[in-house]
């Protein structure tokens, strides 16, 4: 696998987008605690490199299939904080008109297809999008995610097998954050590395540090380019740690405290920041400016989103069928 060179622009972008992801999630959590947001809130502290860097490795025409913890992927593909907050607040002007929750939202202008709650159910659909690329003869690649827990569902096998038989431009990222709600990995599967499942489909499997944005970016970019060349699907396991509970109402008391302490050293944002400071791509002033810009963006979006109208009751019962 040829080493992908990551440009300075991309490095800076990855850093900015990861900070934006974390800041947006912090805002979402505080809106949730204030009672503005109802329902499920899933944050990804510690996983920002996996989501942001992978989605950044796509071109605009490629399709992104994020799942519930992949806000960073939505943001990296170009989704606005306003649209994200409108979704969480269930407003009538949200992407789904209030019909679907949180980041379960599609945006066809960005080629983002939102997920359903059934883990793994998007895999065959993402493979279908890649099938369309083959039938059409275009070079569009399809990227989907699954957690290490979700990877045990039947659709994981059916989807990957289908993609491998048809040699489709599909990339599947396993986000191994070591806990599926309260289930640790050794209760989910026997082998040490899920990336080895790639052997079952005779496709490349990679096991990488999911907290290292540059490694994630270059590995995914390489797989995407391979897919675009018509060489078929890849499986990439990104190991990280879920630093928060499964969702905003879960305190994760079941997680080994020592494990959390270990992984605190591997914060993706802190580590990339240090690297870019060393390389002279960042300095203290730039870091603070980036922070201010992000806060400004989020504040403006929060104001607009809170002021946006709720859906009208009369809209209920509509929209089931396309014309």
């Amino acid at each position, binding site marked *: 696998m040829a080493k992908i060179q990551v440009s300075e622009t991309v490095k800076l972008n990855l850093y900015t987008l990861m900070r934006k992801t974390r800041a947006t999630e912090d805002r979402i959590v505080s809106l949730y605690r204030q009672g503005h947001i109802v329902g499920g809130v899933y944050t990804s502290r510690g996983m920002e490199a996996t989501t942001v860097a992978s989605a950044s490795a796509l071109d605009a025409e490629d399709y992104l299939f994020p799942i519930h913890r992949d806000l960073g992927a939505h943001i990296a593909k170009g989704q606005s904080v306003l649209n994200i907050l409108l979704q969480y607040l269930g407003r009538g002007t949200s992407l789904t008109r209030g019909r679907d929750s949180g980041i379960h939202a599609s945006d066809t202008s960005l080629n983002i297809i939102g997920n359903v709650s059934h883990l793994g159910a998007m895999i065959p659909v993402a493979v279908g999008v890649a099938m*369309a690329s083959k039938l059409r003869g275009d070079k569009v690649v399809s990227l989907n995610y699954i957690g290490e827990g979700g990877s045990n569902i039947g*659709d994981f096998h059916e989807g990957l097998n*289908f993609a491998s038989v048809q040699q489709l431009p599909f990339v599947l990222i396993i986000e191994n954050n070591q806990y599926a709600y309260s289930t640790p990995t050794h209760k989910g599967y026997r082998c040490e590395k899920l990336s080895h499942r790639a052997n079952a489909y005779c496709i490349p499997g990679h096991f990488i540090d999911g907290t290292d944005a540059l490694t994630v970016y270059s590995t995914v970019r390489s797989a995407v380019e391979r897919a675009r060349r018509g060489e078929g699907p890849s499986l990439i396991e990104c190991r990280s740690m879920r630093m928060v509970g499964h969702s905003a109402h879960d305190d994760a008391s079941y997680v080994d405290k020592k494990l959390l302490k270990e992984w605190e050293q591997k914060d993706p944002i802190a580590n990339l920041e240090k690297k870019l400071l060393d390389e002279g791509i960042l300095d203290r002033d730039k870091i603070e400016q980036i922070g201010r810009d992000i806060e400004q963006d989020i504040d403006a979006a929060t104001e607009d989103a809170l002021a946006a109208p709720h859906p009208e009751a009369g809209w209920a019962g509509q929209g089931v069928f396309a014309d």
Partner: protein
Amino acid sequence: MAEKTYLAAINDALREEMSRDPDVFLLGEDIGLYGGAFKVTKGLYEEFKENRVIDTPISESAIIGVAVGAALRGFRPVAEIQFADFITCAFNQIVTNAATLHYRHGIPVPMVIRAPSGGGIHGGPFHSKNPEAWFVHQPGLKVVAPAFPSDARGLLKSAIRDNNPVLFFEHKYLYRRIKEEIGDEEGLVPLGEARIVRPGTDVSLISYGAMVHTSLEAAESLAADSGIEAEVLDLRTLQPLDREAIRSTVAKTSRVVVVHEANQTCGIGAEIAAQIAQHGFEMLDAPVERVAALDTPTPFSPVLEEAFMPDAARVSAAVRKVVAF
């Protein structure tokens, strides 16, 4: 004009739609080189080639999920489930993804799922099922069940052109047993429209699929033996139901027997009976009767299967009951 079997009419519809629209493609198990377990797709692989008639692995969930993905990119896939009984393996993809994507995210899913349903062929519990009620119950799906070759052809074409997921239950018992003269014209049959296949005055037999023919058989013998003129309404589409046609036939005869091959409890007959009770109570001269299969899985032994399934005698008995009320 040519005499076509129900099966040949489906084959024609697929060929005609694939010729007309390059975005239509087929996927399923054994449909390509082999021409399908029942030979419904015979000749299509040779004509349209590998990119449009795709032999898949045995993966019903992937077959449907892939169809959803292709549909959201503008294709019109027609997925085949080899026997309707196996549709349960794809249940989640159908009701979670295909059915809800437009409601939730405004993205149309123009796909068709074809499945040979029904029994009477000594197929046993897993080759005889009529699963339509499960899917009529899920908002976001259209469901079609033709009884005649011209309707099979016309409804399949309409289903393929529809911008929503449509379940097309073709009754396997009818494949080679029912023939009809079919012309060259396009012959589209709109979804949501029922058809009176036998006008009558004394009782309405509301049915679909193979049971339309059973109902006709009963109607003939009722007319000959007892002078009872039964009107037979072929629903053709189950979702959306043709409420006006149902209302109209009830208004005409005041007595209704719903006949379907699926199990009785919570079958389509239950929905129709409830709708009639709710909107047409004053028009009724007798309670709505249902003739349906027993509430068991389909038995294998021909003796048991015969006792399990509705037949003309049971339909006639139900008619006499409502007439005598």
